[in-house]
């Protein structure tokens, strides 16, 4: 039975849950049934084929629970910082490893938010309201919505510590298909920082199809960091939707350092004036890894900004895709939209496909975009070598420097240091200095 058939036949069981999402799930399911999994025939999936992943015989619902100790998984946390933690093991919430003891704001489970009366209003208002209805994988996630994280920061509240979301796959199943669903609501003038990671602890296949909807109200601030450094048997389709109101800031940093196939669909919808949206990414790949960044910034109101900067370093037979769409509506005058995608191919067997898509209908705007694909600068290499830095180290240092300046906007110093170290490790260089 192929994965689609399997999903179709198991849907009925799931629908026995009669929660707030019942009707929405039904509609989304029908959508998915019609659309099926995306294929390379679709423009949006031209360079990313899911075939090699979809032929796996995935288990949809884990049958047994595994216990993990903190020591087993410590390296995957940014453990240097004091943070709230929401940990899922094979899709199931793990209370021992988690800490959601918040004060003045709420971090809880989607299964709870979807089922209790207390959250009915907020779910009705936000749930599935910005996630794309006509996109098959988002619909698939919606149809199977069951578990995930619900975060609610009320008006003028500043979350006192970052929140780390960790999704572990342990491999008790031969192959596991996970579909976490998250909802983040940041009310007026509130602030929160979130770090997310999907991590497989097994060589058995895992496929994660995640959907996260985030609402950032007036004057609110959201910083979201995604660390993707998974096993070669793990694939991830991430669908993130962000809606922003006037004068708000939202940033997403995506660090893609590993995994079999990773697809990041990142969508920003600006719904007010003087909004600032930041999208940054560092991708470092080797082997046959594949990462596809598919971004959308929808400028529909005047006086807003977006800053997009993605860097890619590709070795061996790895492949990268960057597809960045910026839409500027005719009423969105004085928009400042910047997009930059710079890539280095370390081997001539590596590939990058980069495609900016600018659709600009307003006349008084500042939009710039640029993409480069290159090797390391020969002049810079010579400069380093004349200072006694050998070829290999010079290459490492230059690639490190190339990626590194994206980190300046990371606002959690320990996370910045951690990613910095990951970059150095990935590039196989001993930097001879801290940080």
């Amino acid at each position, binding site marked *: 039975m192929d994965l689609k058939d399997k999903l179709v036949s198991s849907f009925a069981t799931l629908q026995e849950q009669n929660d707030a999402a019942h009707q929405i799930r039904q509609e989304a399911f029908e959508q998915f049934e019609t659309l099926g999994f995306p294929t390379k025939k679709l423009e949006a999936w031209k360079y990313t084929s899911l075939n090699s992943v979809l032929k796996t015989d995935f288990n949809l619902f884990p049958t047994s629970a595994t216990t993990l100790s903190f020591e087993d998984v410590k390296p995957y946390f940014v453990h240097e910082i004091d943070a709230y933690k929401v940990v899922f093991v094979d899709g199931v919430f793990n209370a021992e490893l988690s800490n959601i003891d918040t004060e003045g704001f709420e971090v809880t489970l989607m299964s709870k938010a979807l089922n209790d009366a207390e959250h009915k209003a907020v779910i009705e208002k936000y749930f599935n309201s910005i996630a794309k209805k006509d996109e098959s994988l988002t619909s698939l996630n919606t149809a199977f919505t069951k578990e995930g994280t619900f975060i609610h920061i009320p008006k003028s509240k500043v979350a006192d510590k970052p929140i780390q979301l960790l999704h572990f796959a342990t491999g008790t199943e031969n192959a596991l298909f996970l579909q976490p669903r998250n909802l983040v609501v940041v009310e007026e003038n509130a602030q929160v920082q979130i770090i997310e990671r999907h991590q497989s602890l097994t060589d058995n296949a895992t496929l994660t199809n995640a959907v996260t909807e985030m609402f950032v109200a007036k004057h609110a601030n959201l910083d979201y960091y995604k660390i993707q450094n998974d096993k070669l048997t793990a694939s991830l389709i991430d669908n993130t939707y962000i809606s922003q109101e006037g004068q708000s800031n939202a940033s997403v940093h995506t660090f893609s350092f590993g995994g079999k196939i990773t697809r990041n669909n990142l969508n920003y919808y600006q719904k007010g004036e003087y909004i600032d949206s930041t999208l940054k990414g560092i991708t470092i790949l080797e082997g046959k890894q594949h990462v596809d960044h598919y971004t959308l910034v929808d400028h529909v109101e005047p006086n807003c900004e977006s800053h997009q900067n993605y860097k890619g370093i590709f070795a061996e037979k790895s492949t990268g895709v960057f597809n960045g769409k910026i839409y500027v509506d005719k009423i969105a005058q004085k928009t400042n939209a910047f997009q930059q995608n710079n890539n280095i191919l370390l081997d001539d067997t590596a590939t990058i496909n980069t495609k900016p898509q600018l659709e600009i209908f307003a006349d008084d705007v500042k939009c710039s975009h640029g993409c480069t694909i290159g090797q390391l*600068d*020969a*002049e*810079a290499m*010579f*400069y*380093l*070598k*004349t*200072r*006694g*830095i*050998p*070829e290999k*180290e*010079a290459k490492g*240092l*230059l690639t*490190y*420097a*190339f*990626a*590194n*300046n994206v980190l300046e906007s990371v606002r959690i110093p320990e996370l910045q240091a951690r990613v910095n170290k990951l970059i150095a490790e990935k590039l196989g260089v001993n*930097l*001879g*200095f801290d*940080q």
Partner: protein
Amino acid sequence: MLKIENLHASIEEKEILKGLNIEVKPGEVHAIMGPNGAGKSTLSSVIAGREEYEVTEGSIEFNGEEIGEMEADERAHKGIFMSFQYPVEIPGISVTNFIKTAINETRKAQGLEDMPASDMLKKIKEKAELLEIDRKFLSRSLNEGFSGGEKKRNEIFQMAMLEPKLAILDETDSGLDIDALKIVANGVNKLKSKDNAVIVITHYQRLLDYIVPDFVHVLYDGKIVKSGTKELALELEAKGYDWIKQEVTA
């Protein structure tokens, strides 16, 4: 220390150095002057080991060893330093981290351990003071957005940190204001000893007022066509290059 004989070098099939000879002994300061495009920067790049230049004939000996085939980093490890006419901007790595890496890689090549962090800090502080460089400056990305003069001063800071045996300063004076020129020249003089040597490439006599050369050479059309003492620089300043060109073509 440095002995270059009949050096021919080309880039992209174009011959730039056409049979050049020069010898530099420990403790000496040599100045190389010459019109634009004569091959001065080419000579420094070839000595430092830039791969794009092909040495087609002749030899470059450093302390009795032929170095013509060596990688640039090996030459640096042997004590050759070149201050760039146009220092390269490298965003994403600070001056401090860069110089630490350079020093420790050089030590590694010499079979030494990394320099202890406290020694490193002390040395950085000392050399930064010598060249009147602000500490804040050292945490900025290497050469990125530096003014012309700041770049040159930073080159000499690196030289001071690396303590080379032979320093080639390619137009280090261009872009420096009068005060900075004195500071940089003073830095170079402080680092001079009877065991090391300096080659100063310049267009102007004024640098040579501060860094006084033992020999002055004129490089023209890929060759050293005239050598003399510091008076030659004064003569060039007064008369330009035409008389030399005429002597050569005559």
